[in-house]
């Protein structure tokens, strides 16, 4: 099973909007459970970013690596410089997936997300409804599962 989610930046200090712009899981059952997993992993993402300290923030790599392993899943994170977070949840049983494959998947997600942002009719913060994005995510997830 694999899940990908894109989460927007936190807006302002008082209201933190961390809702997924896009969430897709294969197979599609248990989607609610993935919502929960993704949501909790956001805290880990925030922790990782803040733990780096000011000096390192500039050199911070976008790919955050394995966020935390649970007994069933491994969760990977990626944050853009505009604070958009991508989270990927993969079955623990999937040991064949290597680090650089995950990195390239995140890069593809990032590139597709950038294309969506360039659509003049897309308002930042809207849920993502894009055939091109769906196709890309589907093909990526098919490769993994």
């Amino acid at each position: 099973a694999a899940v990908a989610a894109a989460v927007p930046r936190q807006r302002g200090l008082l209201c933190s909007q961390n809702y997924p712009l896009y969430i897709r899981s294969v197979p599609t059952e248990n989607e609610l459970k993935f919502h929960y997993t993704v949501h909790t992993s956001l805290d880990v993402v925030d922790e990782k970013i803040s733990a780096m300290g000011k000096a390192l923030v500039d050199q911070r790599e976008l790919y955050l690596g394995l966020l935390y392993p649970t007994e069933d899943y491994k969760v990977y994170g990626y944050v853009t410089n505009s604070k958009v977070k991508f989270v990927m949840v993969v079955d623990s049983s999937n040991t064949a997936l290597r680090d650089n494959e995950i990195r390239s998947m995140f890069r593809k997600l990032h590139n597709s997300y950038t294309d969506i942002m360039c659509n003049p009719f897309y308002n930042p913060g809207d849920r993502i409804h894009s055939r091109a994005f769906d196709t890309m995510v589907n093909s990526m997830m098919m490769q993994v599962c």
Partner: protein
Amino acid sequence: MSRSPGRKQENHKISRELFVLTYGALVAQLCKEYEKDEDVNACLDRMGYSIGIRLIDDFLARSAVKKCRSYSETADMIAQVAFKMYLGVTPSVSCNSVTGNEFSLILDKNPLVDFVEELPAERASLCYCNLLCGVIRGALEMVHLAAEVSFLQDRLKGDAVTEIGITFLRKPEDRKHRRN
């Protein structure tokens, strides 16, 4: 070519993304300001016209082309020289009528819609690239060719191809002129 003297040859290219995003922002803003698609289309056409009447001189100066002798030559010139020069694409030209004054430019690739997948549901009859129609119409008018230019098909609306139709309007005075 009369563009260089007295002016430093500045070949600074501006990024394609910036241009496409600017055009997109323009259309999106018009959509916010006008409720009806027809109004947005008309506005884009007017803007394009305003660009076309100015762009034609730049085109003629840069391309140093000879005067076109027929409508068919004109259509070819628009597709093969002008589109190539300004948008980097070359639409294919086909003649639609026996009378020889209706042509179609079929655009395989359209850089203006790079990031637009499809029109939003509430904007189904928006002609996203209507600016181009205005540009062609304005440019032709400045070389004394009246034409009607519009989108016949649009990939963004679900059609198979994007097709711009140019209909040259014959004026009775033209005939007399050519005989002289």
